């Protein structure tokens, strides 16, 4: 068992798809919360195996896409300082800020480095004591323990030249915001597998109960997604609204208690601005007071940030499942992966980029079964 290729097998996928077809008697709209799930669905062509009546809409679970413009602009401003090395996950480098991206900042002389892990950024701080290392700490709950660990390690090792620019977001408040929207048309969720590996599923039970929506916590391989969809359809067809775990090899009911304790120790909840969506109350993390010294936003004063979002970009509606990427008027015209207006066109997890790369649709009218698109 290697836990990867076993779940990418054509025969199994076909059998699960046939079971979904048999189970599905009505049109249903299911949101996959995670960008990673969107990525697999589009790259493997899973949606092509599903019955027409089943619609998958792509959720807000792409940390790169929802990182607010202000954070990107601030990162670009910090990267331009001669004393700073800005370390980041690779996928943040092409996210458009108000004026340019981190790659452009690098072309103007900024020291921007790609790291695989926040812990590598801590190493960078140890190796460059005369420079300030700022790590762009984005992510959902999955990435929170690694980012928290980086801060704790820097704290313990007394690495005063390390800091983090935090833009952490949380899944349950975003799901509530989607369900509270009058334009919502999502009837069930494929829940976020790796987020729940850390956090467990307890936070999702009140959502399933209050909004009467099935939530099936699902993995990221083709067979995982197809099984998750099958279980979701079975709940929808029988009028059930429960939290189920499809991804049982990695998700336990209570999550990883030790990792959750570390998150508690380092972070506290705060309101957070989601790019394209707006501020969602208590939907993010920030550093707790004793560790605030490691907050790059506090350590470095940045003047004259003028945050300006494109007026053409519909990424907010797309992230909430109200629009499909190709229904945005700018899609493929003003907005392409070369000239992205919104982050959803940048990240390979972003729904717009995934559509542009792998699914160039012919124009379709803006009517969808069961939809009330505003």
């Amino acid at each position, binding site marked *: 068992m290697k836990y990867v290729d076993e779940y990418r097998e054509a025969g199994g996928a076909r059998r699960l798809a046939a079971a979904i077809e048999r189970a599905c008697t009505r049109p249903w709209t299911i949101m996959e919360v995670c960008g990673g799930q969107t990525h697999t669905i589009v790259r493997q062509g899973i949606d092509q195996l599903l019955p027409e009546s089943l619609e998958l809409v792509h959720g807000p679970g792409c940390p790169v896409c929802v990182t607010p413009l202000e954070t990107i602009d601030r990162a670009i401003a910090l990267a331009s300082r001669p004393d700073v090395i800005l370390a980041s996950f690779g996928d943040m480098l092409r996210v458009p800020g108000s004026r340019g991206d981190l790659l452009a900042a690098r072309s103007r002389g900024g020291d921007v480095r790609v790291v*695989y892990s926040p812990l590598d950024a801590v190493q960078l701080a140890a190796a460059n004591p005369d420079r300030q290392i700022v790590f762009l700490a984005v992510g959902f709950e999955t990435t929170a323990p690694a980012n928290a660990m980086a801060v704790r390690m820097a704290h313990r090792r007394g690495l005063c030249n390390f800091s983090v620019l935090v833009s952490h977001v949380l899944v349950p408040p975003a799901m509530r915001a989607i369900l509270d929207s009058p334009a919502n048309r999502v009837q069930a969720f494929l829940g976020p597998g790796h987020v729940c590996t850390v956090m467990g599923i307890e936070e999702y039970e009140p959502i399933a109960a209050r909004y009467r929506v099935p939530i099936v916590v699902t993995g990221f391989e083709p067979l995982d997604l197809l099984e998750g969809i099958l279980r979701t359809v079975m709940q929808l067809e029988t009028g059930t609204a429960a939290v189920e775990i499809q991804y049982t090899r*990695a998700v336990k009911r209570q999550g990883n208690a030790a990792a959750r304790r570390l998150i508690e120790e380092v972070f506290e909840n705060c309101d957070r601005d989601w790019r394209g969506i707006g501020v969602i109350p208590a939907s993010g993390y920030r550093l707790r007071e004793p560790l605030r010294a490691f907050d790059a936003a506090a350590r470095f004063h940045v003047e004259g940030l003028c945050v300006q979002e494109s007026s053409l970009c519909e990424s907010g509606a797309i992230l909430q499942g109200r629009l499909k990427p190709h229904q945005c008027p700018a899609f493929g015209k003003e907005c392409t992966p070369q000239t992205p207006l919104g982050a959803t066109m940048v990240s390979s997890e972003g729904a717009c980029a995934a559509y542009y790369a792998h699914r160039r649709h012919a124009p379709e009218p803006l009517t969808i079964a069961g939809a009330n698109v505003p």
Partner: protein
Amino acid sequence: MCLGVPGKVEETYREHDVLMGKVDFGGVCRRVCLEHVPEVRIGEYVLVHVGYALDRLDEAEALRVFELLASLDELGDLAGPEVPEDQAP
């Protein structure tokens, strides 16, 4: 979201009082923080995200989807090729 990649723990050690390890991802090994999977044994699989082990993988549970597939096959066999009623015994 969040790439999570299964890998096999090859060795464990402590670094600045944090449990770390070498994890093999199928011919590619990397340093991974194992602090929050303290009970992990050499040879076990963990799920790794940005150099940090989120949790151990449960082998028994990992086989469950294949059991489901087998049961789908049985269902398919039970349904069998459709026999017109007038030819049924």
